[in-house]
């Protein structure tokens, strides 16, 4: 059985914390430990940052939290600029740049991350964290 929590948030930086807080509460209710809740919070923050920074002049973006069995699934959808996923390069950690860490951090903290994007058509990020009992 799936529970689904959906938010439609303005593409403004001040609302990213709303998504982070909601994710924290849902993850806590599911029984994740503190470290996992922090991981989820950061990953959700990064995904939402992406929507706000690259959402162009779209007014809103969508974030859903799905609870299915022992999986916490986050989907962030924006209808902004999009980007070429094939051209994304992992950051060079020896020579860090000021941008480009977001996807790397999501992939480090969540169990599965898929990014679907096309230039001009927006981006969908799906992330999963599994509850280890």
């Amino acid at each position, binding site marked *: 059985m799936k529970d689904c929590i959906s938010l439609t948030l303005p593409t403004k930086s001040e609302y990213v914390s709303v998504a982070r807080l909601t994710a924290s509460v849902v993850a806590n209710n599911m029984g994740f430990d503190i470290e996992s809740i*922090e991981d989820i919070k950061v990953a959700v*923050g990064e995904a939402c940052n992406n929507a706000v920074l690259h959402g162009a002049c779209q007014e809103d973006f969508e974030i859903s939290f799905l609870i299915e069995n022992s999986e916490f699934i986050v989907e962030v959808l924006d209808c902004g600029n999009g980007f070429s996923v094939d051209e994304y390069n992992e950051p060079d950690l020896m020579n*860090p740049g000021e941008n480009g860490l977001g996807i790397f951090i999501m992939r480090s903290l969540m169990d599965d991350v898929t990014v679907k994007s096309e230039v001009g058509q927006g981006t969908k990020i799906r992330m999963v964290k599994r509850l280890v009992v």
Partner: protein
Amino acid sequence: MNVKGGSTMSLKMNKVFQDMDQFWSVELIGDVDIQTSGRLKEELNQLLDQKECDINIDCANLSYIDSTGLGVLIGVLKRVKKSENNILITNAQQNILKLLKITGLDKIFVMK
């Protein structure tokens, strides 16, 4: 020199110039994220405009930082390195340390 920072609900910065050892001591309280990182960038650069030297960032009360905040610190590090100075990160909590380790930034900043 004591420069009190401005604050919003989510980020407060206390900035003090340490005369004896000649460095900026910056205490971050709250969250550095996409909403507050711009202000962090502005204020750290303003400190360096006053005096180019090491910056010691006290993270004892920093509860959250994201990639936009880390990007600001990387940018400021590049500036201080030009005058052979450093950014020191002190008293970081576990969640902040984890992020610094994952990104390799614990090897780029001086960690105390």
